């Protein structure tokens, strides 16, 4: 973002962050197998930074836990995200960030599907198609400037 470009949505509504996951006794038990669940996937992506605002995707309500579906046994993950406005030009970038975060954070047995919540974006289909295309995602990550923005979204905020 160069200085002076107008933000598309300069004053977004901010949502409350959910607290850290409550640690249960079974999580501390060596012998219990904890399956990968929706909340765990949500925890992976909720702290991703928005490309435009100093806010996380969770605070902007771009990602919600109920739009995360995971099946540990069948090794599939489905995430739907909701751009803040229907014409958001950052939708692809946000989707890419989510996808990259999941690729880096999940075992490679998982099939990862990231798409826009139906009916919330003008060019929904095009974006979904881009995100589903392995080749295009790989190619995008070869692009240094794109990778730079994605990495910035994935950096832990230093506040």
């Amino acid at each position: 973002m160069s200085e002076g470009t107008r933000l598309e949505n300069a004053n977004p509504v901010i949502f409350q962050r959910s607290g850290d996951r409550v640690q249960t006794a079974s999580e501390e038990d060596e012998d219990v197998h904890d399956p990968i669940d929706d909340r765990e996937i949500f925890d992976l992506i909720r702290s991703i930074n928005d490309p435009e605002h100093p806010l996380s995707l969770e605070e902007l309500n771009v990602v919600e836990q109920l739009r995360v579906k995971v099946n540990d046994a069948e090794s599939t993950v489905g995430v739907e995200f909701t751009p803040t406005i229907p014409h958001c030009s950052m939708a692809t970038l946000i989707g890419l960030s989510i996808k990259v975060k999941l690729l880096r954070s999940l075992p490679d047995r998982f099939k990862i599907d990231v798409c826009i919540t139906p009916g919330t974006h003008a060019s929904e289909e095009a974006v979904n198609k881009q995100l589903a295309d392995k080749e295009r995602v790989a190619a995008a990550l070869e692009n240094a400037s794109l990778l730079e923005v994605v990495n910035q979204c994935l950096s832990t905020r230093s506040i």
Partner: protein
Amino acid sequence: MAADSTLALSLVEEFVSGLQDSKAKDAAKGVKDGKFTVLQLVEALGSSLTSSQPHTRARGVLLLSEVLQECYGELTEREVEVLIAFYENRLKDHYVVTPPVLKGLKELTKCTNLPPGSAVSMLRSVFQDIHVQSLMLSERACVYSMLINIMETREAELKGLGADFVFGFVQSMDGERDPRNLLLAFQIAKNLIHRGYDLGKFTEELFEVTSCYFPIDFSPPPNDPHGITREELVQALRAVLTGTPKFAEFLLPLLIEKLDSDVQSAKLDSLQTLAACVSQYEHKHVAEFLQGLWTAVRREVFQTSSERIESAGLAALTALTSCLSRSVLSSDSEDSLSTFLDFILTDCKHHLCEPDLKLVWPSAKLLQAACSASTRASHIITAAVMPSLLEQYNNRTQCSHRRTLLEVVQRFIHSVKNCQSSDNDESVFLAFREALCSIVFSALSESNSSLQITATSVLTSLAQQAGLLLESDIELALDHLTRLLLTEEDDRVSLAVVQCAGALAQLHPALVISKLIPRLKKEMFTEPMNQDQGEASELHSHHAVRQRCLSALAAVSIQPSVVQESTPVLLEVLRSAHTGDVSFSVDEVVLTCRSLQRIAEQVQDTEEAGRCFHNVVIPRLLSLALQAGLQGEGSSGAPSPLVEEVVLSAMVPVISTSCSRLQPTLVGQTASRAVSLFLDGDVSFLPDNSFPSHMQLLKKQEGDSWSLSQLVCLLMGSVCSLPRSVEVPQIDKLLSALEEMSCTCSHPLSYTSAAKCFAGLVNKKPQGDSLDSLIQRTMTRVCSELDSPSSSVRTQAFTLMIWVSKALLLRYHPLFTTLTDKLFSLLDDAGLGPMAADGFSLLMSDSTDVLNRACHADVRIMYRQRFFSENSAKLVQGFNAAPQEKKPNYLKALSNIVNKLPKQVQVTELPALLSLLLEALSCPDQDIHLSTLSCLEPVLVNPPQVLIQQLEALINRLLALICSPAMSVRIASLSCISALSYFPVHEVLPFRARVLRALAKPLDDKKRLVRREAVQARGEWFLLGSPGGR
């Protein structure tokens, strides 16, 4: 005499022509020793002072000045007068002569016997003949020091000089650039202002010449030897600018202008200066700038970019308002306070009513800042704001809006609390009492938990307003709190409720006693309904209610009168648990003990409270424990929960806290009762006295029964936490009984407690032969047990030894070294080796129940470092010499020691031990892994060079550990790997691919906590060396 004048002559010759600087010292010494006088020296200087060469003259004056520097204190008034006349005259000389002349004058100003009038004439000539700013830095400093010196000693004369002095100073500092000199100049200006010099018509000049430096923009050069900081300059200048109301008309416009600056530090400095200056001003000084100041402050708070600026702005607003409130009004002037508050109200009030509440916080903060300035301001503002806030609250339906409004109200109440003085004004909120109570109670009845939490804090603030709430209001509040306590499941709510109840109990103990405590008691003693077929969840919620009641009882018990009512309830719980009248789980019994402990920690230390604990609580506890112990021995039915180890361990801190902090006079009595109970079986002080006589609690029990022998931990609680002024009766008998018990008993809690009790007493026993022989005796016994491999009580002997070592280590007792040597030798022992290694962790860590500062133990500072520095070499040596199968013991001991060292010490000591620690990472013991990793982790934040050199080895070992069977080891190693990614990039980048590959595996770990750590680490390593990453 003639010889002396030749000496002076030769010194002058060598200094002036020979350019030997050291001769000045010799000349000064000559004057001091009385070999020649200063005037003789001047005579000797004659030819050089009259030389046609300016440099020779300068050299001559320099010699004289340097001599004066050494011996200005010994000059007579006559000499001073002559010298001043001479120096004043020399000021007119060639410019190269000026520096030494100024130096000489500066030395002369230090003389105590300056002739009258000479200071003034000196200054006149300096101001007349010298243009200060064309001098070099050190000469300018000379002039300033002169001024400072004269101002110290000749204040009256200088004031006689009138405004000329100020003018002269203004001229001489005008254009000064060096921070060192500025500090001096600011000091002079501050003296001018604060000591009441007549500024005359030069007020504005003085302001101009100093204010041109505002705001200070200075960053010291790196490695600055003078150590001047920006903060020093800022403070010095601020003292000048804010010193007098005469500057008001110049300063305030300047501040308004600088507040508009883009530089953050300028804004901050302006706001802080504003807050500082108005404390001196009256309303007439600020009246015409009010609008401008308000606009500037409002802008800073509304559009704030940093919290510091915001809080500085609010502080300035408070200061300004209190300046206006302070002023006495004359009949014809307008009330500037109400004018000013009108500005604030017009600009801020409407934001409180906007539908989206977006600017509500900054507006509220501004209003509250003004509100907190004075009672009058708070009356005006609350009268204007509260009605609309209350109305808003009632009209809104969204919980989040209501909460925001409630928080705003709370801040208002809080800000008024700050300003209310001790005089018995009626509370500002009296008019709103009813409305406030009703919104608080309605919020408490809502189902939204954050609203409830906010309401409790409003309630607390309201209760703290003296004389506001009626008794009936408090009663109603307590009803609400009780209801929430009994029904609300949310932990945050019950925490807030408990805190609020605690605050109310401080202020209204009587009502809490009559309303709250009986309710809680009743609730705790009801059995859960239909116990047999009761569902697990119901039992669980009943447990939670009891738990909340217990913590509420603890929280309200701060006033002794409340404690007198609450402790019987808790004791009753313990009694019923013991007899089984009402069933309480072991958990609940432990929580009851914790509540008692908390009360002992927080109750005001009054006689009443002390009696309650020493005469009621402790005897009750001992009696119940004894009953349970006796019963445990005989009966075959369900054992009393009071024989459980967790319960006893929870009782110990109740006893030790009350013995360590409540009423030292009563403590002695408790201690002697406890000792006579345990030594002589004296049960006369216990309630419910139906005990067999002649119990021998410290002797070996029949059939080695543990239920009575373990009670020794209660003895430990009382005798080991006495203040050192209280003596333990029959100490020698007690010590030998304890030693006997700890060496013979077979029940772990019993022998450990006996050993701890023994150690606690040894730690406090006064230095001397009796202590030494006691230790020797114990050592002999312990060693003989330890040295016979067939002995059945080696563990016991070892336990006693390790606790005694700790007691001696803490007080730096010289006999400690013999014990350490024994301990080191045990690391090679087949049976006790691992235990000895664990013992080091006990030595180095703080113990919770004995041998800590709260128990008044003799704990020297830095005993851990001392132990480490004395013994680390021994340990390394032992490690190298040990056979392979014993090495893990050494590694474990080492990591136990290093782990407990303060982080700063770890970081400096680690490089030497690094190879050993790396070794520890590859040995098979998981505990060693864990403690070594926890030593390593803090060091990785700031890696020393040694560590970077060993990076390859470190990464190999860490990556091996992420497959460890222990989950905690996996987590710790992953977090170390994550920390490694912050090492210098060029060092770790070569490992990136390998680490990323290795980290793929733990992403699929079966434990979620491990996966979380792995995700974190892998994310960091992905960012390493990648565009946009690091």
